[in-house]
Every structure is written in C-alpha cells, then in structure tokens.
C-alpha cells in the first residue's frame, strides 16, 4: 500500500514537471469554455434588458485608462444605445503593455469585439488567425455601409492581405514626415536660436540639426540632449519596411522595388555612426536602454531636450500637449507614405468577438458620427473640453492637461479623426491640411503590397531574437557601428536573414507582375 501511494505521489511529481508547456498551450482550451460561459451569461442579460448588445472595445493610450473612462463610455452609450442598439465597454491599456495584454487575451480567446491594432501587430494578428474576415457574410457591406465613403475604398483595399480584409484603416495622417526632431522651444531660446520660418514644421538639414544639438549640449551640459527610442530608426529613415519588419527593406522612399538588407546599407551605417557620435559627445544618457520612461515624460520632467517624432500637420500642438512645454518641430527628410502606412494601424474585429454585427455597427458609428468621434477623441463637452469663440476646442473651465480625466492625445488612432474638433493651437483647417499632406507625400512604389510571412516564420523569429539582442546597443549608439553592425548582421545571416529577403523579393516580384 505504502508503495502504491508512493507511486502515485511520484507520478504526480513527474506530471508537475511535464505540465509547464501544457499549461501555456492548453490554456486556450480551458478559457474557450470559460468565455463561452460568459457569453451565454451576457446574452441572457440582454434578453432581460431589451435588444441592446454589449461589446468590448479595446485600444491603448500612452498611460492606460484615463480617469473618466466610465463617464465617456456612458456618454457614448447614451448615443449608441438608442441609435444602433449597442453598448460599449472600453477596455483601455497603457501602450507599453498593450501588445502583451492583447496577445494574452486573444490566445486565451477572451472576448474582444473591436480591437485597435496599434502597438499590436496587424500582421501577427492575421498570421495567428486572431482576426476575422470583415467581408464574411457581407458584414462590412451590411452593417458598416458608410465606412467606405468615410475612409475611401482604396484605403480599405490597402488593408487586404492575400485578398482578405481583416481591418479597416483610420482617417488620419497616413503620410509621415520622416526625420523629425522635436526640441523644447525654451532651450532653443536659451542658445539664441531663431527659427527662420513661420511653418509649423521647420525644414533644416541634418548638419544644422547636429549643430543645434552641439549648442544645446554646450549650454545645458546637465541635460540629456537627445533620447532615441526603438522606433526612432525607422522614423528617421527613408526606408520602406516591407511587411512591417526591417528584415529586407526598400531604400530611397521605396522609389525602386529592389529589396535590400538594411543592415548592410550605407543609410544604416551612417545612422548608427551618428548616434555613436552623439554618445561619444555625451548627448545621450548612458541609461537610455534601461530607462523605459516615455520621452514626453522626460521632457516634461525637464531632463531631456529633444526626441524623434513623426511629422504631420498638428504635430506641434500634439507634442506641446504631450510634454507640457512648447515644442519646435524640425524636419530633415521628406513626407512619405510607406507600403505599410495605410494598413499600419487598422481597426479589427477579432475572432473572439461575440457580437460581430454589433461591433461593425459601432465602427460604422465611429466613422460617421461626429458626436461619437469627439467623445472618443476629446471626451465630454463641458467636462473635458469646451468650444472657444474661434471654433477650436480647448480644456473646459477648471480643467488642464494635468487634471483632465480624458486627455490621451491619441486622436490619430481613432477611426475618423477628421470628424472631430480641431484643438486650440492648431490651424482651424487642420483636417484639410492633413488631407493635402496625405496627397502630397511621396508614395512608396510598393504601396498596397502585403507580405505573407508564413514560409519564413522560423527565420523571422530567429532573426527577430538577434535584433532584440542588438537593437538598442547598435541603434542607440552604445557600440562602435564598425564592429557592432557586422556582428549583428553575421548573426542574423546565420539565423536566416537572407531567406527572408529572398522571400520578400519573390513575393514583391509576383505582386508587381499581378499589379502591372
């Protein structure tokens, strides 16, 4: 008997050691039933309270759910409940955790009815099968009939991957002003720099920017001049990162369809050399890679003077709001629409959605109803913002950036920013200018191309691992680019970088053939 008990005990210990991977894999199983239970529970609730369907809408903001999320949610529901019979629950996560939380929720099949693919990769979502086909059962045509008109059929089609539509683009700055640096104006005044133009974005050369940095460093040796982030390299480049990753890119604003290895390009070498130079001169904090505080916060705190951003009409007001200091925006490169811009941050309906029709109805409202759009972007009129005499929105009485309960400065993420009020400090014609900005920008020749990475999933993971290991040290200029880039490139080649580039070449050629 004793032996038997011991045997069972042993068996259970073995089981413990076996279970680790099972628990990660199997969790989707158990939670599937879990969420089904939930959905039956909520559908019974619906039957009790009439025909209103409750959907969960998930998106990030820089700092997580604003204090007045429930008030805004209630205000949205007051509109949508009667009009389309939908109630929303806003599930808001801070930007830094959004990718992880969303991956976790989707892999566990938790209910999300409407999801913003911002910070969470649209490509990954499609590959893992988390997103549903919006044309299925004519979902878009039946329940979102006004969306195509609001954003344009071309833009919708740009979100198709292998012909299937998984997401809807937002109306925003599709082009991006590349090579932009935001510098707090007070420090520019300190060095006596005079902005030589009335434009919102001041065009200068890279040498001039370097010169400003040198003067800033001299005048304010205790402050950090510039802080790179993981997104800085692509914002400060003219590359087209095909398929949303930098393994195999088009150079020169995508003007020729020649897929090259970014890490062997002169652009990359020069970029890293510049950052290395910044580091040698002491412009960048030695803790830059460990400190994950948002650059806006650092400027607000007064320890940082400049950072990289993406240019667009309204950027000056946006960054000024973000940092609480007047910012001057400089641009060293051109305005550019890359092949991934349009489909970069679409709104999607995940397969874990329990109310797909209601989700589409709600999206239709977001794209067409100015009241809903304003609530999402600026909050409640009178509580969070008011309309001034000039017709521009500003903080409501007694409310400021610091104590507003709904001040996420993520209007660009919302489905239709063009419906919302223009914030004070901007050109009243901001949205017209935005449309012009989108029309006038350089467009990548690969625009509309989407990369299917199924065949190189292994290589992508392995190469991404290498990139994770080296990115901050190389791109923040902590190591000598002469040796650092070569080391990283060699390791990536071993991990299969060439195969990814070849695959991109082949797919791009096929796409070119089909779209002649």
């Amino acid at each position, binding site marked *: 008997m004793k032996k038997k008990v011991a045997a069972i005990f042993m068996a259970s*210990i073995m089981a413990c*050691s076996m279970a680790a991977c099972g628990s990660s894999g199997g969790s*989707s199983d158990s939670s599937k039933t879990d969420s089904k239970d939930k959905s039956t529970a909520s559908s019974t609730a619906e039957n009790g309270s009439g025909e209103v369907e409750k959907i969960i809408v998930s998106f990030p903001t820089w700092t997580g759910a604003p204090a007045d999320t429930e008030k805004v949610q209630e205000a949205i529901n007051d509109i949508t409940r009667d009009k389309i019979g939908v109630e929303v629950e806003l599930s808001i996560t801070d930007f830094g955790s959004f990718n992880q939380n969303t*991956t976790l929720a989707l892999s566990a099949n938790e209910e999300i009815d409407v999801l913003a693919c911002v910070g969470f990769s649209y490509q990954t979502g499609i590959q893992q099968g988390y997103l549903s086909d919006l044309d299925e059962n004519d979902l878009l045509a039946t329940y979102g009939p006004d969306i195509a008109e609001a954003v344009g059929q071309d833009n919708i089609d740009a979100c198709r991957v292998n012909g299937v539509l998984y997401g809807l683009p937002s109306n925003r700055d599709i082009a991006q002003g590349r090579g932009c640096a935001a510098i707090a104006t007070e420090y520019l005044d300190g060095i006596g720099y005079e902005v030589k133009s009335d434009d919102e974005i001041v065009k200068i050369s890279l040498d001039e920017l370097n010169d400003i940095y040198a003067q800033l460093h001299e005048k304010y040796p205790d402050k950090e001049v510039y802080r790179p982030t993981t997104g800085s390299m692509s914002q400060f480049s003219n590359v087209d990162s095909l398929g949303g990753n930098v393994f195999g890119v088009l150079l020169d604003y995508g003007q020729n369809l020649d897929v090259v290895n970014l890490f062997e390009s002169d652009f990359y070498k020069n970029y890293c050399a510049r950052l290395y130079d910044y580091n040698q001169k002491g412009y960048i904090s030695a803790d830059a890679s460990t400190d994950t505080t948002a650059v806006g916060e650092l400027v607000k705190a007064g320890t940082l003077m400049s950072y990289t951003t993406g240019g667009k009409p309204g950027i000056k007001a946006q960054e000024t709001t973000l940092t609480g200091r007047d910012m001057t925006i400089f641009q060293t490169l051109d305005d550019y629409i890359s092949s991934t811009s349009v489909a970069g941050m679409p709104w999607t309906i995940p397969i874990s959605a329990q109310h797909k029709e209601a989700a589409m109805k709600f999206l239709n409202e977001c794209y067409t109803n100015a009241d809903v759009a304003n609530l999402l972007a600026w909050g409640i009129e009178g509580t969070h913002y008011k309309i001034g005499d000039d017709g521009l929105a500003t903080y409501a009485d007694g409310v400021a950036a610091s104590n507003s309960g709904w001040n996420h400065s993520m209007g660009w993420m919302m489905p239709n920013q063009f419906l919302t009020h223009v914030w004070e400090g901007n050109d009243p014609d901001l949205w017209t200018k935005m449309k012009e900005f989108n029309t006038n920008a350089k467009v990548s020749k690969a625009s509309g191309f989407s990369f299917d990475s199924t065949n190189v999933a292994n290589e992508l*993971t392995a190469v991404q691992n290498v990139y994770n290991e080296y990115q901050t040290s190389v791109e923040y200029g*902590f190591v000598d680019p002469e040796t650092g880039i070569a080391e990283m490139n060699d390791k990536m080649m071993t*991990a299969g970088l060439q195969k990814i580039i070849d695959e991109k070449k082949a797919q791009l050629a096929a796409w070119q053939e089909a779209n002649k």
Partner: protein
Amino acid sequence: MARVKSQKSQKRRKTFVRFLPIYILMLPGLIYLFINNYMPLPGLVIAFKQYNAGKGIYGSPWVGLKNFEYLFTTSDAFVITRNTILYNVAFIVINTTLAIAVAIVLSELEGKRKKVYQSAILLPNLLSTVIIGYLVFAFFSVENGFINNTILKALGKDPVSWYSEPKYWPFILIFVSAWKSVGYNCIVYLATLMGFDKSFYESAKIDGATRWQQIKYITLPLLRPTIIMLTMMAIGRIFYSDFGLFYQVPMNQGALYSTTNTIDTYVYRGLLQMGNVSMSAAAGVYQSIVGFILVLGANLLVRKIDRDSALI
C-alpha cells in the same frame, strides 16, 4: 481457482475500505493535479502544428518538427539550456550552503535578537521582483548608480556600463538570488536544527569538542536527510528558472541576453513579443523533455549514492 480469486478481491476490498479515509484525504490534491497538470497535456500538440486561432487547436495543420527549427538554427537552444542549468546548479550549491550557515548561526542566537535577525533576512523574499529589479538598478545604473558614482569613483576607476556587459551578470544574479532567498531557505533547516536532541551537544562539550567540531560532527550529519530532500526537490525544478529574477532584474536588456536568457524568459518573449503560439509551445515541450531527462538522471545518481533518499 475462482475461490482464490474472490478471496483476493475480497481482501483488496477490505484494504480499500480500511484506507478509504486516506484516499478521501488525497482526493482534493489529486483533483487539483488532474485539472492543473493533466488536463492541459493535450495542448502539447500545438508545438507540432501551425497554430491558427481561427481553425482552433485541432483544426490547425500539422507541421511536424518545423516549429522547433528556430531553436536550433541559431545558438539559442544551447544558450538558454546552458544558462538555465548552470544558474540553477549555482543557486542550489550556493543558496543551500548559505541557508545552512545562516540557520546554524541563527540557532545559536537567543531571544528577541534572533527574531529580529530572522525577520530581517526574510524580508527580501517578500519583495516583488520588480522592486528588486529597481533596487539593483539603483546600484548599477550607469549614470546615477551607487557603484559607479561612489565605489568606483572612490577607487579611482572608470564607470562601468553594467547593463550592456553580459560578463558581470552571472555574479550579480547569483548574488541577488542568494540575498533574496536565503531567509526563506533557512527556515526549514532552522526548524530541523531546533528539533535536535540537545544532549548530543552537551556530551560533546564535556568531551572538549569545539564549536566547529560540534557543527561538523553533529549538526551536519543530522541535517543530511533534510539537505538531500531539499536538494532533490531543487533538482526536480532545475530546468525551471525564477522568471522574475531573469526578466525583471536585468531590465529585459537585449545586450545581456547571452547570460540572462533562460528557457522561461525565452518562451515568454517568444509568445508575447512575437505572438507565435506554436513556437512558444515548441520551446515549452523542449523544456519539459530536457527537464524530465534531468530529473530522472539526478534521481539515478542519488540512488547510487544513497538508496533511501532516492525518490523512485
């Protein structure tokens, strides 16, 4: 023949009835084990499939061992296996030695002082690893850290960029682990020590044994079964790393991966940053298989040395 059989089954039933209360006692634990450790086992198939949430676990296409390839095309599999095992071996040796030493010292103390010391040593174990990560950062931060600004400055040495030099991290992590866990680890040893018959020590003293001799010839031999048992349990988990220690304490720095990446952090990064469920599951399966082999191997070794202490 039939009678013999029925007699046997009758006997079996009798023993079953006799031990019924014990079986019932065992039931909650078994149910827990079943739900938590057995029910997820079918999920293992994900590692061999190209998982697509739309098609579900069983509808996704089979891809054989393809999901495992990325582990072995680079040196990833080697690095994470090496790190996981070497760190855990170091932890087992160092943390056990320290725990025993601290337990012996504490057992010599009396009254209030002992409680104060014990609580103080236990305190780090109650801290969240995130907080520990920032405590470590306060020491090692390149610009404002205590070590660069105070110690190295006083010694007249150049500041070190701690978070981009992988070579220092084995020492830092082992130190942090020891500091964090010694208080907790010594509790069991201390409890065992307190239960020893004091007359051993009294007679040893009469015979003129020194403190060191008492420890060497009385305390340690008496502690031996406890040491073996706790070490065996630690070996059973040798292929699992303390996730917080390896993820939070090095601040998830890419430059440190070569000495801080363990299987758990690798799987975590794989799933949550790259979002590929199948490949993470593959790394998990790899962990289970190597872990299983290690546990059996360690047990075999212990059985050769000391049969009674072996688990199987």
